[in-house]
């Protein structure tokens, strides 16, 4: 038991020596770490989605700025409202669609187009 304690004491001494022998950081590794840091830091500085932001800016400018964007939005909303709930004076577009569905539109009602072309020579 005492001899085992001696070995543990020797191990403690060995660990103490090892604690004082810290390995230096290799220069190449330090350079790699700092290169990574610079790359990540550059990502912090850049806007998150520069492409999308630029596209929106261009579109807004092309349409005439915020007032024009507001007018466009109002017109879209009005059109949608008229489509969904048309005034009584206007025909219901859904009914119109229903009336024409299944019918054939006759361009030359009562005449045979092929015959007419033959007669014209």
């Amino acid at each position, binding site marked *: 038991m005492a001899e085992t304690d001696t070995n543990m004491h020797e191990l403690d001494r060995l660990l103490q020596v090892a604690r004082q022998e810290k390995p230096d*950081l290799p220069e190449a*590794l330090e350079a790699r770490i700092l290169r990574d840091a610079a790359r990540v830091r550059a990502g912090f500085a850049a806007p998150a989605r520069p492409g999308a932001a630029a596209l929106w800016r261009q579109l807004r400018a092309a349409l005439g700025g915020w007032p024009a964007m507001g007018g466009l939005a109002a017109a879209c909303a009005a059109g949608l409202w008229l489509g969904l709930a048309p005034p009584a004076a206007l025909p219901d577009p859904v009914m119109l669609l229903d009336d024409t569905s299944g019918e054939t539109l006759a361009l030359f009602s009562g005449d045979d187009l092929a015959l007419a072309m033959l007669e014209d020579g």
Partner: protein
Amino acid sequence: MIEPADSDAALLARFAQGESRAARALTARLAPRAYGVARRVLGDAAEAEDVTQEAMLRLWRIAPDWQTGRAQVSTWLYRVTMNLCLDLLRRRRGGSPGLDEIPEPADPAPGVVQRLQDTDRMDALQNALMTLPERQRQAVVLRHLEELSNPEIAGIMEIGVEAVESLTARGKRALAAALADQSAALGYEDHG
């Protein structure tokens, strides 16, 4: 201006604000520690370099989201480093035994550790460390080489303090036994 009194968390915040000198200061403070433990745990300098670079890269990336007071930066970095080492060791060996599967070490042969020659000592220590199960090795390195407290190690290894105490005690006995085996193999048997 970087002051020695600046905390790691303060430096990390300054890095997140774009200060390159903060990255240099943090690298000087933290990377050698990460590299040291990775080398001890992996027993391979090249792999330890890769692990250290990856751990530091994760630190740079988390910088803008770092919440001061959540944890110590050094503890966080040790934990990431240890987890990366474990991943690497498991890939190497294709699995790791659980804590319960680790056998108790035999008592070392008496009086042989002291016979190791000085020049062999550090190599012998590293070789002996490599014979320990991975979690024991981590605990021994953090406790006896990095001199961290048991609660700190518990935080890094994400286990309880009692489990740390058990791992370090068993690890140290196993280390002494492995060193005794090595000294016998090297021809340093106790003939007296």
